[in-house]
């Protein structure tokens, strides 16, 4: 009997790449790059969640930075207010899930332009509430967020001594998120989501509970963002209102679009690469313009994403 094809090879390759990158950077005494790679990992988690929602289920969200901020700010407020220290990240994730659930029920009834506009409005509301509420630090944000202790001496923090372990924590979570997402899109639910993307009426006619599936993937996608927000708040030791801005939401959409929409690996690659470059300041003053331009260029010339474009080239030659 032939052994079943081993599906985990790309995942092992990714894990290997993560280890090799760390080893090489540490050997070259350039491990300050690990800080940005860690942040890029957390942002990539948001992009993966949005990829499930937008790429597979076909539901656009122009307010994902809002979910990121809800997770981050909840964790920030709880951990600076003297609550039990383990509570902050679970509370951040739970708050994000709850808001996504409550917002999702009415908003996901909308389609197309209406859904885009409603989620845009949601993101805007979150960012305005942050800017107007003194508990949330208004324009200054919240700083002095303590480390988040995990098991066995591990902690999510930006302290230099713990840089390497934080790099591994972040990429391990991304890897887990990726595995969950890959399995989800291959499952019955994943097929249902793609059916909804293709044609909601037809999906409903084939017995798929459209509303429930859309809501479930919306909440899951928000949980990815909220978890990333909460963890990054602990890693950075602070969070500011910029994280909730419209520009951030657009950026996540740009990453998913450039990755090829329904392409988790593409999203991961583009997101890790571009976010790292952006965090290193490679785009200088034109950081936001680069993402806006990328969005327009991809959607005009290669709606199937960067990798789709390469594949098309290959076929043509």
């Amino acid at each position, binding site marked *: 009997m032939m052994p079943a094809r081993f599906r985990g090879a790309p995942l092992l390759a990714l894990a290997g790449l993560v280890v090799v990158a760390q080893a090489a950077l540490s050997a070259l005494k350039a491990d300050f790059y690990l800080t940005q790679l860690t942040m890029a990992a957390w942002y990539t988690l948001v992009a993966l969640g949005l990829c499930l929602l937008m790429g597979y289920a*076909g539901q*656009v969200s*122009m307010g994902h930075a809002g979910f990121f901020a809800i997770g981050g700010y909840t964790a920030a407020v709880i951990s600076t207010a003297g609550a039990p220290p383990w509570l902050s990240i679970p509370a951040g994730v739970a708050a994000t899930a709850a808001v996504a659930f409550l917002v999702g029920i*009415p*908003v996901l*009834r*909308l*389609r*197309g*332009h*209406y*859904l*885009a*506009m*409603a989620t*845009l*409005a*949601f993101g*805007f*509301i979150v960012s*305005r*509430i942050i*800017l*107007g*509420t003194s508990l949330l630090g*208004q324009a200054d944000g919240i700083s002095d967020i303590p480390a988040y202790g995990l098991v066995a001496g591990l902690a999510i923090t930006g302290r230099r001594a713990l840089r390497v372990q934080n790099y591994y924590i972040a990429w391990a979570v991304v890897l887990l998120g990726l595995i969950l997402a890959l399995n989800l899109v291959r499952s019955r639910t994943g097929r249902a989501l793609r059916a909804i*993307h293709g044609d909601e*009426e037809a999906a409903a006619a084939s017995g798929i509970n459209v509303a429930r599936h859309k809501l479930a993937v919306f909440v899951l996608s928000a949980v990815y963002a909220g978890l990333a927000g909460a963890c990054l708040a602990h890693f950075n030791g602070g969070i500011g209102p910029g994280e909730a801005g*419209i*520009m951030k939401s*657009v950026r996540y*959409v*740009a990453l998913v*679009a450039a990755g090829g929409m329904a392409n988790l690996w593409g999203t991961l690659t583009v997101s890790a690469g571009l976010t790292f470059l952006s965090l290193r300041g490679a785009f200088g*003053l*034109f950081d*936001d*313009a680069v*993402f*806006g*331009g*990328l*969005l*327009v260029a991809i*959607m*005009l010339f290669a*709606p199937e994403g960067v990798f789709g474009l390469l594949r098309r080239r290959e076929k043509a030659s």
Partner: protein
Amino acid sequence: MSAAQLLQYLLSGVATGSIYAIVGIGFTIIYNSTGIINFAQGEFLMLGGMIAVSLQAFLPLTAAIAGAVVVTGLVGVAVQLVFLSWLKKPGVLRMIIITIGLSILMREAALHVWDEKVHALPPWSGDETSSLAVLGARISPQVAWVLAVSALMVAALTLFFRFTLTGKAMRACASNPAAARLCGIRAPWLVSLSFFLAAAMGALAGCVVSPLTQTQYDMGTSLAVKGFTCAVLGGLGNVSAAVGAGILVGVLESASISVLPLAYKDVVALTIMLAILLLRPQGLFAGMTRKRGPLGRVGGA
């Protein structure tokens, strides 16, 4: 609250509301000729205001405003010709993302051409301290200008669509593109014209409101969301309903300032908008509106 104070809130609410209505009408014009919701609509107001502020440094105010309106209109046409005209049957999701990307590019361009500071045109008549007395309330003359200019734009547009050949041709294209083409109407030119109209109207609105609310490079998004809701309430076609919706939202928004901190002004307005979008997505006059609704098929996604 005294009656005079109430009137003051009411008038300033009506003024901001009519600006939302103009944005909403801009959405409607482009939507009817192309089926595209142009998420960069709010940026036209920003561009109009910014260009007028710059021109005003060496031109009289009237000429600066006229220049800003024409230049912004041409930017609208350029956007349509360069980015949108050659796409064959683009899906809704694709168009949303392209126009959002364009709005970011315009905003970033403004940030680099001008800066992140708040700019403002001088009041069109009198100065910052002058005021008009209306039934005991004191309002800035600029509020009167906003009302007059908006009313004029709406009236001119209504007459244009109803009585001129070009306006009728645009309506024909909106209701049945194929039949319009068979009658010899040249649709591509009209699409460019609709972008010019939407952008120029936006620019004029941006100029008239600049002395009151100032102009900043990132003002476009909230205007777009508010204007879109007005357009939706008007069933994406009914100009007077869009105006009514705009005024309603403007008044509620300005009333909210007396109850809640100023920082939450947009939160209140956008929450009302979301509620409207969710409760009456088919518009105020459901029976009369077109079929392309938010809950029905929007075609390709």
